């Protein structure tokens, strides 16, 4: 990165390079991030954490009054990343006294990379188990999927489409089962009704196991867990007339369809993820502070079951279980009417889990060196004045 001075000079004469490598741009980006952070924090009061995250921190632009585009945090962070990279290449002095400075900025760059990797790769779900129950399937908090499986006595092979990208006309191809679905309508949050739509143009009959005859779009909830999606789909089968299928996230029944001699089930459900191992809950324990109802600790004793071996371990607050790319955290618990305890574990799959740790260490080390050198310099100046 230590370019020759003349190359640096020449590059810095290019206006766009000059602009993107200026410290003033860094100040602007930092100010914008500060402003977005404040705005996104206050917005949580009315719109909740999830919507504020999507609107301010994961977006490229925010539309003010649905018209005026304001840069979102994602865009600002990318510009800041480019700025940091260019400053490191073109403006930094590669001397020992500036080592702290350089390390800090490299740390910050790796921080932004870590944030991006986590944003893209991290998958969050949960696993609720009763004592002595075993499972290898975790459930997403608020991501939905349209899943299809064949009626079968033994195993259940599920094919699923992520519902995040559903929009009018999207084709969901289940060639191996001999049919396809085309999205007609899809609402991220809606109410379901047992009576047909009042709008006569939409009064059509649907295949639905729960007797739902119409859906009405609703605004998104503050807590994304409260959103119940729904949609209507055109079912296409060879040699048979197209029919409409209605699926709703709040249903407890799956909708059966006939394809040839086979019966398939369709369901709009929270996204499931299969893990390459199983977790068995052996025991759940909770302690409270004496003479209060305030919990002091929760812990789940579990067994991790893999084809090679089974191992027992304890998951408690601040003490998660890490296995392969997965981490299990004690999240909550419940006791049913029969007094049976169940424990909910948050499941996070994140291949880039270590990146933020490395970035933090690097940045802090840089700050320590930089301000350490500055302090020593200050003491020296003071002595010389004295």
């Amino acid at each position, binding site marked *: 990165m230590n370019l020759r001075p003349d190359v640096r000079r020449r590059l810095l004469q290019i206006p766009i390079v000059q602009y993107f490598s200026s410290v003033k741009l860094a100040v602007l980006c*930092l100010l914008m991030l*500060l402003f977005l952070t404040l705005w996104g924090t206050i917005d949580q009061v009315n719109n909740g954490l999830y919507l504020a995250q999507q609107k301010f921190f994961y977006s490229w632009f925010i539309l003010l009054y649905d018209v005026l585009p304001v840069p979102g945090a994602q865009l600002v962070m990318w510009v800041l990343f480019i700025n940091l990279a260019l400053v490191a290449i073109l403006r930094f002095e590669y001397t020992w006294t500036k080592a702290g400075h350089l390390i800090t900025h490299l740390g910050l760059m790796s921080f932004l990379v870590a944030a991006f990797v986590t944003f893209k790769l991290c998958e969050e779900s949960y696993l609720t188990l009763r004592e002595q129950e075993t499972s290898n399937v975790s459930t997403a908090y608020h991501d939905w999927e349209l899943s299809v499986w064949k009626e079968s006595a033994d195993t259940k092979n599920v094919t699923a489409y992520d519902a995040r990208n559903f929009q009018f006309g999207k084709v969901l191809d289940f060639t191996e089962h001999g049919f396809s679905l085309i999205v007609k309508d899809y609402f991220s949050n809606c109410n379901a009704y047992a009576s047909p739509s009042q709008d006569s143009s939409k009064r059509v009959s649907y295949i639905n196991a729960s007797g739902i005859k119409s859906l009405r779009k609703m605004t998104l909830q503050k807590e994304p867990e409260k959103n119940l999606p729904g949609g209507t789909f055109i079912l296409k089968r060879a040699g048979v007339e197209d029919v409409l299928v209605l699926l709703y996230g709040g249903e407890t029944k799956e909708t059966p369809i006939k394809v040839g001699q086979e019966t398939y089930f369709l369901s709009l459900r929270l996204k499931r993820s299969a893990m390459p191992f199983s977790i068995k809950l052996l025991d759940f324990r909770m302690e409270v502070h004496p003479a209060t109802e305030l919990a002091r600790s929760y812990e789940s004793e579990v067994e991790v079951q893999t084809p090679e071996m089974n191992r027992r371990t304890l998951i408690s607050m601040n003490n998660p279980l890490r296995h392969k790319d997965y981490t299990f*955290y004690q999240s909550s618990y419940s006791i049913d009417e029969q007094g049976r305890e169940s424990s909910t574990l948050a499941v996070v799959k994140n291949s880039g889990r270590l990146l933020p740790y490395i970035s933090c260490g690097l940045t802090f080390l840089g*700050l320590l060196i930089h301000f350490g050198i500055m302090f020593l310099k200050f003491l020296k100046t003071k002595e010389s004045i004295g």
Partner: protein
Amino acid sequence: MQRSIAIGIVLTGILLLTTNTFADQSEHFKLDAIKKIPVLEQGRIKPLDTYVRNILLQFSGKTKYKQTPALEWMAKLLWTPEDVAQDKVFLINNPEVLLALGVLPDPHRRYSFSQLTKGFHQLHELARAAGQIPDKERSIVEKELLRVYDNLILYIDLTYCLRFSVPHADFVINEPGVYAKLQLPEDQKEFSFLDIVLKADLIKAMTDSLEKKNAEQWTLVEKDVFRLLTNLYQWSLQYRNMPFKIIPPSDQKREDLLSPWDAISDEFKTPAIREEISALNTLYYAFTHGRQEDFDRAGYGFVESVLARAKHFRSIKFLSLEIFYNQLKSFAWAQLFYILAMILFFVNLFKPNPKFGPISLALIIGGFLFHTFAVISRILIMGRPPVTNLYETFIFVAWVSVIFGILSEFINRRGLGILIASVCGFILLLIAGKFSTEGDTLRVMGAVLNSNFWLSTHVIAITTGYAGCCVAGVIGHIYLIQALVKPRDTQQLDMTYKFIMGAVGFGLMMSFLGTVLGGIWADQSWGRFWGWDPKENGALMIVLWCSIILHAKVSDLIGPLGVAVSSALGILVVAWAWFGVNLLSVGLHSYGFTSGVATNLIIFVIAELLFLMVTGFIITQRKLKWSFLS
């Protein structure tokens, strides 16, 4: 003359506080014997001395009732409640609550039990309705209603806690034959619950045989004994799970203490517990009859017995320290020393004297020693790092700021450090005092926070970051005042500016460390490093603000004046991150909210902005004028 001023200032302050500190002794009846009784409350074993102060604080916002020490007031509540029924101890802040209760407003906003009982039925109904509303959705009036209602219930419960010693109509002997059967003194008609419980074996022997008889065949004596037995049973049920848990159970594996009522119901056969209940009975008679010697003997005996049986509890070892901590009032001393140092500093500005500097520094160090003693005592008492709640953040940030001030004074002996330490120490302890009026500030923590490792890393780092930024803000103000008052003293201004930069850098480093450690803690407990939660965002804003100041200076967007103004504005960013976000009542960290904070915060923000605009404007105008003239 100047020496007299200095001595006068110091002595007046010390005298005022000394009078206050040692005024905790009752003039009538000494209650020292019971101060050390261990009481389990809110998950923690504490000395009775702390318990009573907290109860009174919870009721009235003060740790004394007029000139009556908390322990004396509480002793009356426990043993002679009729003596305190007219005491105005219930603080009610909201006029709408008073209206609902039909009570006329009092200029001191405090009301007696007798006043409130008139509207108790109405209060009960309103509190029941408010209790059904989720906590976050309750209005200020509903919260206040519930608080007042809970306090009234606790007050009533406390009056019953030791009532087993008080003779009651339910235990009147109607049939003379019962005296002989139960071996009770015949010159007494009305007995206490305890008097009758002590005869439980005799009663049982008599009533067992009654099962074989028809009720019509019972003699009058048997009927009277059966009535006593029924009343005993009803009282035992009625007074289950009362507060004032002071008796260790015989099973040492248990982590709780029992209320005397539960101890009588469940463990009265244990000799030590029987002795302890008997000692409590003696305390009642000694207190109500003014027999000091009997009281002391029973009190010390009771304490000795329960402490011996409860020695396996960690907190028992620190009861004496906690009592000393309560009595010493270290924070008040520290505050006094800091304000005296500040006054002396300003006196020195107008009437310079070479001795004032060292005296001020000595006062700061004196205050710091009291401050340190209090911080360490709290660590020892709770067995955990110093910061676990909002109150403690103020104590700790003040402490770090004072260290910063003392170090600065040793580096640059021109009074800057004294000003930093005295201003930060005094103001932050003053704010902490406001947060201490809600009850016990030494509280147990919920499961997710209950980690000494993270409390001693993340929390310490982030609060140290707050301290760095607060100090930078204070020095920023000092710079602005210096630039107004002594604009041509460039050497002093330059030195102050360097201190600002140092404090901003320190604040940035520690805030960054605290923020990332918080991220790591979140990753360990919730499975995500960063979630844009309001508290996380607040910490990020501090890091961003410090970075903006440093980068704006590097790129010459601002000069020393801009740095001073920005660092002063940094206090607003810190205030937002520290407790401003709690006002939003959203997110995982939304703890420690106190109504009234919002108003104070807004007033502070407006005052600060006005100050910065006015000083900034004057300084800039003056600079422009000078550059024009030159």
